[in-house]
């Protein structure tokens, strides 16, 4: 019988087409995205056991009303000026105990960065976008000051170091080294941002 040879081979010419089809499907459905945003810690719900007395001058009060207007330390200001004002407040060094501050040493403003607290209050009608802008500016004020100190001490921006420290691909030795530096800078300008509950009117 002439047919009894080898079985005919399956034609694999269309394999590429099938693979392309699958490839295009996965190409279209893939989303390679990493989310980014502003990290914040909420205050625990139990009040601290001991009442801490904070001097009024160590609090920088930021108030946002429902129209998105900003009241910072009783002055109506533009959001664009907020970062500068917050930085001046944090960097003020009223009691002279902070050796690296470059502030004006105004006696009506904060004593030193470790005591300075920024308090953020908003209305229930405030737009979320405005709130994020204000948050961004306040975090930016801290980051700018931390960058300045990191640049002075380690010759590198703080945000840069922190990003590398948080990156899971950084190897362990490098991480330990960075951790120390990051912690030190964070200690110089601790982020004390308190958020009061919103007012309803």
């Amino acid at each position, binding site marked *: 019988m002439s047919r009894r040879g080898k079985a005919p081979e399956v034609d694999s010419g269309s*394999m590429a087409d099938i*693979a392309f089809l699958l*490839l295009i499907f996965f*190409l279209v459905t893939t989303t390679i995205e990493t*989310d*980014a945003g502003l990290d914040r810690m909420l*205050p625990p*719900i139990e009040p601290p056991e001991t009442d801490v007395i904070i001097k009024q001058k160590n609090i920088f009060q930021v108030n946002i009303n429902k129209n998105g207007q900003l009241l910072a330390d009783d002055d109506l200001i533009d959001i664009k000026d907020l970062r500068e004002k917050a930085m001046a407040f944090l960097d003020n060094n009223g009691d002279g105990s902070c050796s690296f501050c470059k502030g004006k040493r105004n006696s009506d403003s904060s004593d030193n960065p470790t005591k300075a607290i920024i308090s953020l209050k908003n209305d229930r009608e405030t737009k*979320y976008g405005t709130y994020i802008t204000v948050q961004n500016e306040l975090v930016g004020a801290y980051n700018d000051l931390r960058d300045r100190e990191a640049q002075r001490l380690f010759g590198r921006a703080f945000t840069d170091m922190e990003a590398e420290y948080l990156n899971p691909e950084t190897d362990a030795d490098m991480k330990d080294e960075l951790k120390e530096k990051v912690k030190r800078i964070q200690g110089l300008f601790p982020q004390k941002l308190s958020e009061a509950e919103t007012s309803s009117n």
Partner: protein
Amino acid sequence: MSKFSKKKSGELPAVSTASLPDIVFMLLFFFMTVTVMKDSSLKVMNNLPSASEVKKLEKKDRVIYIFVGKPTPEYTKVFGTEPKIQLNDKFAKPSEVGDFILMERAKKSQDLQNVLTTALKVDRDANMGLISDIKQELRKVNALKVNYTTSTGDAFANLQ
């Protein structure tokens, strides 16, 4: 002599396409492994605000998402135009956020339960009142680490 003349005669040989499937398969496997299928479809508008001082949210398995925004056009008839909270696949009241977090937390493995972050994906036009309610709920269940998810860009663009 014929040896030499043979070489020169004829056209250029066609490029072999035999390895094409292999290349395509390689690409295919790459995309298959990196693909993350969406597990919930958005029922709310989610035009995130932008910010410049952002931090990346690493490790997706440690994140719980909460979406807030106006219902999308197909749901406005039923749910109105006021911003709503979306948990997984359904709309929810602020009071349900706490239970949702506890449930999600229980699903994660033991060692991750203490390092979870709650990512708030909120539309830029939402009101802070709703966000405050959510924050209050999060505080009640001790989920204190939050991330206000934003897109990267100029923060002042939110004000328009």
